[in-house]
Every structure is written in structure tokens, then in C-alpha cells.
């Protein structure tokens, strides 16, 4: 049943009794053309584009819990493409463009809200780095503006911009096309659309082993039995190393907690997304009225989906430095995810040492905004057994050659 105002009104008449499942709950088949391990946004998007763009008929997404329950459902929902380095910028821009048409493409309102993203500069070096990034964005065809402190004040009057601040705001970059999207809806929308194209989405199906014949992958062991496949893609953010180890190779990844939180809901007060690298916090206000905020990762490695409270304290101290009027609002809920970080803060979307096994990993804190683009190029990579031009640089072997992309080297704020 297509979603529309008409169908909503029609179903309201029958008290919504006739809405079908948004995706089926199939029993796993014995064999698939392609198995995607991991039912987060990236895995579901990959399955969708495999079916839609490459006509792959038998695709399964195996999810150990419930779809969208990992980082897809735990992030701060920011989408933007104002990355510094060409390779990253082109990939994220592709992603943002797909986001712009995604509600229509999926027939699912993902509540994209292009309210703009401000990246604040607080030191002279921040200013240099920010302008460098704005200039790179412009030449790459990505919308970007430089705002001086006065313009920042005009655009978002509640940010503290006075000179007495510990780290005064000296300016900011603004990407107007950036903003937020409803994270759950992205997962569910892709799931529903993939399901309509015949993809089997299998929840509560945990992969416990990856089977090989020589240097070629043959299938997976799961808690619901063995499933064979011609090709397998790994999209298991938070557990990339664990899956790679099952397949018998190592990845240059460490997993860390990343914490995020929301305030109690309040009436609209912040109509853009504000990010600051120097005063480390990023914040937006959800449609429900909650302030949604996050910051940097916890230093230690962890798979526990929780971090340390002092990291949250630092983050809120930063929030109040930027927004002193938020002090009497209340922290309502906090949570943690597991982010897989790479040495150059850029993802790996690549073939692997095992034939027919593909890896999509290492998004660090920047995965949500990449979902459509990542799914698009990963599907291409799996279908063609070679990378798309947009992910050609994101290979696994760049860590041996030294050809890093180094998005965090300069002004790359990777959230």
C-alpha cells in the first residue's frame, strides 16, 4: 500500500485496521545471490540499491537484533556534505543529494529538514581551516558560505557571540542544504522499499561464522542455520573487527563509545544545527522539541554501548558556553553507541582479501549522513566486483601504502 495523504485518510476511516506490515518477516532461504550482514541504515540501503539499481534478485539482510537498532537509531541525525577532502566531499555530497530525493524515492517521509548546519570557528586557526573547507566545498560544487561573527549572530541569535566568551565565535561555515532527518525513518523507509523489491529482511538472525572455500567466501553460519551466498557484504558498524576476524582478515579499526543525549522537549528555540570543534559539542532541536546533542568519542575502546559520564559533563559545559540560556533546561535521556574509527577518520568501502566478500566500515561518527551514498556505492561495488568512482579511494590497502585521506588532519569535523 503506497503512503500518501489519500491512503492515510482512507485508512483513518477504517481506524487503521488495514495497514499491512511495512516489511515481511520471511524465514531465511538456503541460498542468496547476496547476503548483507547488518540491518542498519547502510545494510538496508545497500540491499535496496542492489535490487533497484543492479537488478540483483535474491538479496537478504541479516540482522542480529532489530533493524536500525545500532548506530542508525542512536545518532544525532545530522546530514551534511561539507567535507574538506575531495574524496570524502564527493561521497557525502552524493549522499546528501540522494537524501534530498529520498522521501519520494522510498515513498516514506524521512522528515528531511534542511535547516542548515553551522560549523563554528573559535580561533584564528579555526578561521583558516574553515575558510579552506568552504573554498574547497565551493569548488567541488557543494553549497557553503562563510559567515563572520556578525552574520552568525544574525543567523542564530541565541549563540553566545560576545568577545568575553572563553573561546569567542570568530565566524562559521554554513551549509544551508544540510540539516537533519528522522533516523528511524531512514532505516524503516529503506527496509520497506527493499522489501517491496523482494529483499528478505531477516531480524533476530545473528551471524556466528563466515564460511570460506579457499580464498572465496561461501556463506554464513547463523543462529538460524547455515545460509550460502554468492557474495557477502559486511555492514556491521560497531562490530566490523569482529566480523572481519570471522572471515579471517584484520581491519585497521578501533571501536569506541560515542555518547549522545536529548533534553526535555521545549518550544522551538533553535532552528539550525550548530557544531563546534573547539568548544566540543553539536546540537540541534528535534521536531519533538528536544535538544539533541553529542560530542566526541570516549578515549577507550569498548563494545558496551556506553561511555563515561565525565565526557557528558564536558559536552554540556561546552553547550552552555555556546548557549548560556540552556542552563535551566534538563538532560532527559542519554545513550551510547559503538563507533568504528579508522586512522584517517574515513570509511572503508572496499573489496577484501577474501574473494566475493566486501566491507563497508569505519564511518566513525559520520555514518548516518552517509547512508544513502554509502548504500549506493557499496551496492555498485558488490554488483560490479569493483568500486564505484566515488569510493575508489576508500580501499582497505591504503593503510599499507600510506595513501590516507586524513579527513581529521585538518578541519574535518567528522560527526
Amino acid at each position, binding site marked *: 500500500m503506497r503512503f500518501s495523504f489519500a491512503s492515510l485518510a482512507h485508512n483513518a476511516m477504517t481506524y487503521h485496521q488495514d495497514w499491512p506490515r511495512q516489511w515481511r518477516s520471511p524465514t531465511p532461504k538456503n541460498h542468496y545471490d547476496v547476503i548483507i550482514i547488518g540491518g542498519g541504515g547502510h545494510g538496508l540501503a545497500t540491499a535496496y540499491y542492489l535490487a533497484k539499481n543492479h537488478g540483483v534478485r535474491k538479496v537478504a539482510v541479516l540482522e542480529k537484533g532489530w533493524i536500525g537498532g545500532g548506530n542508525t537509531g542512536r545518532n544525532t541525525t545530522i546530514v551534511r556534505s561539507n567535507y574538506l577532502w575531495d574524496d570524502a566531499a564527493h561521497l557525502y555530497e552524493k549522499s546528501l543529494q540522494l537524501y534530498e530525493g529520498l522521501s519520494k524515492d522510498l515513498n516514506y517521509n524521512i522528515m528531511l529538514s534542511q535547516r542548515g548546519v553551522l560549523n563554528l570557528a573559535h580561533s584564528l586557526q579555526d578561521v583558516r581551516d574553515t575558510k579552506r573547507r568552504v573554498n574547497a566545498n565551493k569548488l567541488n560544487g557543494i553549497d557553503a558560505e562563510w559567515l563572520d561573527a556578525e552574520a552568525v549572530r544574525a543567523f542564530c541569535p541565541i549563540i553566545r557571540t560576545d568577545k568575553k566568551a572563553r573561546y569567542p565565535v570568530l565566524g562559521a561555515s554554513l551549509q544551508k542544504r544540510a540539516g537533519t532527518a528522522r533516523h528511524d525513518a531512514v532505516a524503516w523507509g529503506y527496509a520497506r522499499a527493499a522489501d517491496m523489491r523482494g529483499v528478505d529482511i531477516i531480524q533476530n538472525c545473528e551471524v556466528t561464522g563466515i564460511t570460506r572455500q579457499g580464498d572465496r567466501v561461501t556463506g554464513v553460519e547463523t543462529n538460524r542455520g547455515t545460509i550460502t551466498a554468492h557474495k557477502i557484504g559486511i555492514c556491521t558498524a560497531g*562490530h566490523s*573487527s*569482529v566480523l572481519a*576476524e570471522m572471515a579471517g582478515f*584484520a*581491519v*585497521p*579499526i*578501533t*571501536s569506541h563509545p560515542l555518547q549522545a543525549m536529548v533534553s526535555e522537549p521545549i518550544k522551538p528555540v533553535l532552528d539550525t544545527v550548530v557544531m563546534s570543534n573547539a568548544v566540543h559539542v553539536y546540537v540541534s532541536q528535534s521536531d519533538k522539541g528536544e535538544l539533541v546533542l553529542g560530542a566526541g568519542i570516549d*578515549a*577507550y*575502546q*569498548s*563494545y*558496551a554501548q*556506553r561511555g*563515561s*559520564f*565525565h565526557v557528558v559533563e564536558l559536552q554540556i559545559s561546552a553547550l552552555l558556553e555556546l548557549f548560556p540560556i540552556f542552563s535551566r533546561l534538563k538532560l532527559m535521556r542519554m545513550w551510547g553507541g559503538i563507533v568504528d574509527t*579508522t*586512522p584517517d577518520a574515513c570509511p572503508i568501502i572496499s573489496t577484501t582479501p577474501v574473494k566475493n566478500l566486501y566491507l563497508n566500515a569505519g564511518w566513525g561518527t559520520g555514518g548516518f549522513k552517509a547512508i544513502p551514498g554509502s548504500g549506493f556505492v557499496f551496492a555498485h561495488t558488490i554488483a560490479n566486483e569493483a568500486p564505484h568512482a566515488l569510493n575508489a579511494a576508500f580501499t582497505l590497502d591504503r*593503510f*599499507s*601504502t*600510506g595513501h590516507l585521506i586524513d579527513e581529521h588532519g585538518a578541519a574535518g569535523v567528522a560527526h
Partner: protein
Amino acid sequence: MLKIKCPYCGDRDETEFSYGGEAHIERPDSPSEVSDEAWGAYLFGRPNKKGLMRERWFHVHGCRRWFNLLRDTSNHTIIGSYTALEKPSIAELKKESRKGGAK
């Protein structure tokens, strides 16, 4: 806020320490003689184990000594700590931790 036992100073809050990643990653004796792959693996290859992991910590706001900690990355349980130049077995560390008891 983990509670970490510095082998030199005793139990302290995590904020006194800085993290140094996985322990016992051996720097090649003669780096010039190893292959690009081996050097890349030394630089970036990390087991990133889910479960018990040996990791480096630096008591930066304390005695400024580096040491190692055995911690479960799946639930943050800390088994024990030891100086940078030792490598006691997991069994030994567990035994030590039991002996220490609650206090």
C-alpha cells in the same frame, strides 16, 4: 568514569589517566627492514577484541607512568593492571584480582 588501578598509585578515577590503545603491539626492531604491509600492520592493525583486552594507560595527572590494564571491552569489567614491562597471564591477573577482594 572507570575506576582504574595504577600499579604504582592504586585505584584512581579515569580522568587522571589518558588512554594509549592496545598494549603489546611490538615495534619492529629494525623498521627499515620490514615490508610496507608489515609496517602498515604495526601502525594501524589492531585486534580490537570484543572481550578481554590488554590496553595501555598513562597516569598523566599522577605518577606519569605508562602501564597496562586487562579490561573486558564488552562490559568494562577490569581484571587487573601491571607495569609496562610485564606480561602476566590472564589467569594470574584474575587470581591477583580475587586476592585483592572488594577492598
